């Protein structure tokens, strides 16, 4: 592990040097892109390179959100765009590297001096915190502040919407409800702070990927004296280069420079702009129009343009040159439930895999640009450990292999097809379109689907994710989707292929995968503390699940996003699959 961390640190330094060298080296405007930078505006210019590099300071970046921010509180926020943006006003133990390309998917120390040091077989993780980093009010940040931040996020009554990894892994005292309700309870069994600059996490069982948890915003320190619980989001105390100036919840907020942030303690941030303005609940089509005209810099949610703008952009080469098309770490798929006859027979499930029209699936989601790339595996390509394979080729045009499907049907004893029900979330037009597309493509081999819409609020708890309901209502197929909380195999696979997350009372995203061999493979991978060895194990797990034909992969999601016209250092972060908000400057 120490070897890996040294490599990581060295790698980061080298990359940072080369980046700044390219930036200082002036404009490469001869043919537009050299090595890691680009200056000519063209389609996907910022996908793997830094577009418009510059070190110029000053200016205000303008962002807009079509809805409301999920929450500014680092203890509860659960959206990728928020985690991306949060690094401006919060420093956690680790963070994702702000560089383009695959490197952006690796963790690097932020508040900590280095990545975590595991001991006790991976059950204990130690981090050393840098000295002299201050909050916006000048108080020095101590390990106790990080401990407090993690503990308060465990209070799910005050923060019901946040990630639940820490309470799952930490060895907390029984019945612990967080610092508000369990005041004075000794939590040293879970987290200890031997001194002001060391923090140690004690887990219930070994977990090799703990560094990813340390990169969660829940490790951003919170001063206990200024913590106001569910109201803390009204004024989050900053540990990063920017602090909150104005905060009108539901309307807008602005960030200004934090005078107590010291560049010397921070090798990841350059803090170029003077401030940020974020407008909330702005009309989505309006955002697109203003992005294209240059009136607005960034659509902060980063999920892509609306259908109306899509038409405009694709048809106009000048506008298309202003966009990037990243692949997201998200898979849209359909679960094939073996608890519903005749899908208990593997060949009947394979028939579905062969007969499905993958191109239709892709169109249902919005086509090759705005929808996604046709998926043949469960892991999307950017997850370390991804292996490319296609067990059920869908023919030359991607519309399915009817002949092979019919063979499979014959093998499972249903040569003329069969009937079953398909569930989808009623409020999601893309899932409705997927269901209807599958209804048509499977009908070609005699498989008749009856479509059943369900409300998305209860979809997993009451319907698709509720095993007794699935069986009683013969839901052979259900639309599904999964985006990892962080881009590694555990983050992606654990909730969707581990049979032990399935509850009889409902609620899990995994509705169909019950393979004991896969569970064992997952446990082995999780405990492995060597990153390279761990990553190598995800691919085989993916393949093993696909061999059971209990998941029909649809598309690896993609988004078409508009590049900011007047900003510098624009690039796609592979960790968040949208523009990296930390490095942007005003050109």
């Amino acid at each position, binding site marked *: 592990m120490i070897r890996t961390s040294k490599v990581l640190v060295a790698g980061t330094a080298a990359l940072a040097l080369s980046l700044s060298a390219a930036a200082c080296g002036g404009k490469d405007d001869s043919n537009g892109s050299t090595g890691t930078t680009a200056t000519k505006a063209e389609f996907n210019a910022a996908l793997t390179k830094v577009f418009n590099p510059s070190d110029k300071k000053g200016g205000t970046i303008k962002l807009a959100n079509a809805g409301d921010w999920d929450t500014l509180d680092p203890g509860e926020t659960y959206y990728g765009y928020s985690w991306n943006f949060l690094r401006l006003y919060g420093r956690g133990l680790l963070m994702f590297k702000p560089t383009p390309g695959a490197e952006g998917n690796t963790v690097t120390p932020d508040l900590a001096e280095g990545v975590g040091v595991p001991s006790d077989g991976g059950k204990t993780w130690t981090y050393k915190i840098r000295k002299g980093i201050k909050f916006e009010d000048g108080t020095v940040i101590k390990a106790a502040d990080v401990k407090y931040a993690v503990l308060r996020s465990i209070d799910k009554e005050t923060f019901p919407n946040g990630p*639940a990894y820490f309470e799952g892994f930490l060895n907390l005292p029984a019945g612990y409800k967080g610092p508000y309700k369990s005041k004075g309870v000794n939590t040293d069994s879970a987290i200890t702070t031997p001194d002001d600059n060391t923090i140690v996490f004690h887990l219930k069982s070994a977990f090799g990927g703990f560094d990813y948890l340390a990169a969660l915003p829940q490790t951003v320190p919170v001063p206990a004296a200024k913590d106001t619980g569910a*109201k803390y989001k009204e004024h989050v105390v900053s540990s990063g280069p920017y602090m909150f100036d104005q905060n009108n919840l539901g309307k807008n907020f602005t960030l200004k420079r934090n005078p107590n942030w010291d560049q010397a303690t921070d090798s990841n941030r350059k803090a170029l702009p003077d401030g940020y303005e974020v407008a909330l609940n702005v009309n989505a089509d309006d955002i697109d129009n203003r992005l294209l005209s240059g009136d607005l810099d960034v659509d902060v949610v980063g999920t892509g343009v609306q259908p109306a703008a899509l038409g405009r952009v694709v048809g106009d080469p000048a506008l298309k040159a202003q966009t990037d098309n990243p692949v997201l770490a998200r898979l849209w798929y359909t679960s094939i439930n073996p608890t519903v006859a005749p899908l208990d027979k593997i060949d009947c499930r394979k028939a579905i895999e062969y007969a499905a029209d993958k191109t239709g699936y892709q169109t249902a989601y919005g086509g090759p640009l705005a929808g996604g790339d046709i998926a043949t595996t469960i892991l999307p390509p950017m997850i370390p450990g991804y292996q490319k394979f296609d067990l059920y080729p869908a023919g030359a045009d991607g519309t399915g292999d009817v002949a092979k499907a019919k063979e499979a049907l014959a093998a499972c004893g249903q040569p003329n097809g069969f009937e079953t029900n398909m569930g989808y979330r009623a409020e999601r037009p893309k899932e409705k379109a997927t269901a209807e597309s599958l209804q048509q493509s499977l009908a070609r081999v005699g498989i008749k689907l009856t479509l059943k819409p369900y409300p998305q609020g209860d979809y997993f708890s009451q319907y698709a994710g509720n095993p007794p309901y699935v069986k009683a209502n013969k839901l052979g197929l259900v639309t599904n989707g999964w985006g990892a909380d962080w881009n590694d195999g555990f983050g992606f696979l654990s909730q969707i292929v581990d049979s032990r997350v399935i509850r009889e009372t409902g609620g899990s995203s995994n509705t169909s995968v019950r393979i004991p061999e896969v569970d064992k493979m997952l446990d082995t991978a999780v405990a492995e503390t060597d990153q390279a060895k761990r990553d190598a194990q995800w691919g085989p797990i993916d393949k093993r699940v696909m061999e059971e034909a209990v998941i029909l992969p649809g598309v690896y999601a993609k988004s078409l996003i508009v590049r900011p016209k007047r900003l510098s250092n624009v690039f796609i972060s592979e960790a968040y699959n949208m523009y990296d908000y930390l490095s942007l400057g005003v050109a």
Partner: protein
Amino acid sequence: MFTYIIRRLLAAVLLLFIVSAATFAIFFLIPRLVGSTPETLATRYVGRAATPETVNLIAHRLGFYDPVWLQYGRWIKGIFVGADYSFGAGVEHCPAPCFGYSFVTHQPVWPELLDRLPVTLSLAIGASILWLTFGLSTGVVSALRRGSVLDRTAMSFSLAGVSLPIFFTGMVALLLFSYKLGWTAPGGTYTPFTEDPGQWFYALLLPWLVLALQFSAQYARLTRAGMLDTMSEDYIRTARAKGLRERDVDIKHGLRAALTPILTIFGLDFGLLLGGAVLTEQVFSLPGLGKYAVDAITTNDLPKVLGVTLMAAFFVVIANLVVDLLYAVVDPRVRVG
């Protein structure tokens, strides 16, 4: 007279209670009747990682385990005396009238309602000035020139205006005037009057016109019918016979009499508009009470829905009350009945 006012006031208050109770019943009773439990209700307000324990906690926190009448009583009490809310690390007092805290954003509802009100008010006032002016004058002219080409054209347009769904007109107007021609502001660009009067006007121009189009059509028809009614009365003939100028006959006697019922209808319409210009606000993305209501309902945010429904009912009731009182002043027969 005094007793009449008191009686109407009491009736108005009773009405508000009934509306609030009915809204409460819809959101809290009906789900139970169709088989929801406190847990299934609570799943809407927790995040993706919610465990059954979290769902349980939230169901308790939001009071779903209490009987419906208790939850209702608590809410009513909050409106009159305010309530205290715990935020984990502290307690906040929510002053009366306290419409509770949003289940989704945990922000107090009442300030949000007050924030949205000026938008709907701007929309309603602007549009009503337009439609009263245009609708009434068209109706009067049509009535006076009954049977003429002008009359027929005006009434045809009015009939068309009444038959068009406002969201269709709004969408077509947006497409044509904002996006294709660029003459008016695109949807969702509202700024408050206090920040930028010019932009405020620009953003509301098209919504005013679209809303006014629909209502002027209605009012033109109403005015014309009312005028024709009064113009055929005996006293009009008497006035003419007495030698009064035609203009005086038309305006002073005819229009005045026809106006009274029109204005009462206007009062009711204005009240309804304040409560729910839902479709216009939705099409033009105006951050008013109507859009607030739709957003709240789609996210199942019950305190917000209760708040906006009560506010809307309040306006309707007040409008009714004002109209009734005005009628009592004007027409003594009403007071006795």
